[in-house]
């Protein structure tokens, strides 16, 4: 598959702050790449470098094999978290305006939003607004889509339908870069890139990012007391119903609980993506 967007050792410094530091990233035609990271990890700066909105302090960014420019911008669709629509214009007006801005032919509104074409965008429910933003970003048949938290705030069914749109365009050859805090969204990506302090700390498919990480699952009749004991010991305990999940060794957990006369069943289970993410982030950038 052709590489659409690429950064090679790209860096961006703001004074003494190194927001992005020697990052290699590639998005190919037909793939959905998830960009994960805590707030301040450099995701937005990286996206802005990739779109040519920021000039790198070092390294380079290539869009469709060339330096980012107005002509490459035409080939990119971007949906910011704030959607980038005009609330006081109708769906049709937003559509026409964007087509004019991109100088693209004016295709008909897609069926998914046609029913609301004369309604003001600001009056639509959020799920539908997101669908309109997608339709607008897809309207000039971009070869690369950049989406920031694309399903933030919407319900389960609307989320599934927005992902249907994302997948459809990937199947038509579009490369997609999704920046997100949402693990359900991350799990839908073909490949993940995890940023910590401006660097890539982990990457690969969901299973690669989780790797062999495990957590200890604790079943205890008195989960409340068990939580209090583990929590007081400084362990980052998470509750799942009445089960507890803790990073660490099963032996350590068992001994701690036994020391407080708390009989518990302890098992080592694979970490989920969120637990793996927290572990990657707390370990810092890879050497």
């Amino acid at each position, binding site marked *: 598959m052709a590489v659409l967007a690429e950064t090679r050792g790209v860096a961006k410094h703001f004074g003494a702050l190194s927001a992005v530091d020697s990052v290699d990233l590639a998005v190919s035609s037909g793939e959905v790449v998830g960009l994960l990271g805590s707030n*301040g990890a450099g995701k937005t700066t990286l996206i802005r470098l990739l779109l040519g909105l920021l000039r790198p302090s070092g390294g380079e960014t290539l869009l469709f094999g060339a330096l980012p420019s107005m002509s490459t911008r035409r080939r990119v669709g971007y949906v910011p978290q704030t959607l980038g629509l005009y609330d006081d214009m109708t769906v049709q007006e937003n559509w026409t305006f964007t087509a004019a801005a991109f100088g693209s032919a004016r295709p008909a509104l897609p069926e998914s939003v046609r029913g609301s074409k004369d309604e003001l965008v600001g009056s639509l429910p959020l799920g539908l607004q997101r669908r309109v933003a997608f339709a607008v970003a897809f309207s000039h048949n971009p070869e690369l889509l950049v989406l920031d938290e694309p399903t933030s705030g919407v319900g389960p069914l609307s989320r599934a339908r927005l992902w*249907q749109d994302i997948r459809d365009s990937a199947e038509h050859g579009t490369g997609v870069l999704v920046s997100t805090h949402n693990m359900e969204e991350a799990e839908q990506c073909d490949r993940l890139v995890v940023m910590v302090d401006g660097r890539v700390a982990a990457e690969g498919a969901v299973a690669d990012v989780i790797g062999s990480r495990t957590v200890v699952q604790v079943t205890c009749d008195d*989960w409340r007391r068990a939580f209090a004991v583990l*929590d007081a010991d400084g362990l980052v305990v998470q509750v799942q119903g009445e089960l507890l999940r803790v990073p660490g060794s099963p032996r350590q957990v068992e001994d701690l609980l036994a020391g407080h006369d708390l009989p518990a069943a302890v098992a080592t289970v694979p970490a989920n993506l969120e637990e793996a*993410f927290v572990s990657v982030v707390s370990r810092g950038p890879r050497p």
Partner: protein
Amino acid sequence: MSVVVGGDGAGKSTLLRALVGLVPLSSGISRRPSKEEIGYVPATAGLYTDLTVEENLAFSGGAYGVVGSELAHRSTELLERIGLANARARLGGQLSGGMRRKLAVAMALLHRPALLVLDEPTTGVDPVSRSELWRLISAAAAGGTAVVATTTYVDEAHRASTVTLLEQGRSISTGAPSEIVAAVAGKLGVVRSTAQPQGLSWRWGSSWRVWSPTDVLPEGAEPLQPGFEDAVIIACLADEQEVQPVGRAR
């Protein structure tokens, strides 16, 4: 811990406001402990941006009668928990989004409420801050506080002992996560092709999931044991399509 899951406009905030008594009810009843025993954090507020961390806690404490040495002790305990012990003099407005949410929850916990009500405590919060927030909330639950929280993230519902799925102001499924999965009727299948399969289907990664309310899956679908996320989407689909077999787990 109870978690209410729903999208924008599903009615989550109104439900919480009805629960704590901030909106008059059109019908039905809402029972809750007395006001002094509730800690409530709305979705968009919860602290004063022009007060310091310490002043925010003192204000909240004053409102609930937590003053003097008790306030000092409880503030220190909570600030250490949320990693703000060295930021007492910082203005609320200078805190990161995740820190603000943690401080707002701490303010609501100051008086050791019997009921903690949180409206979208983790929306827009990054995963590390999110797990710290849940640890703080879980600690309150472990200490005997009943917690009700809303979320748009389906995966957060795993943390709850009871989940309520809200769509357009109605509860479409309620129960423990395992009960919601067990309530799935019909058959779920996975279709590994690019073309959308017949029937009620949605994308999952690069394949499709298809749900049939009867026991017959479309051709080419491999049967799949539903997970919690699947069960939630099926409940929503069944509700939208007015298909009967799935619904209330309880």
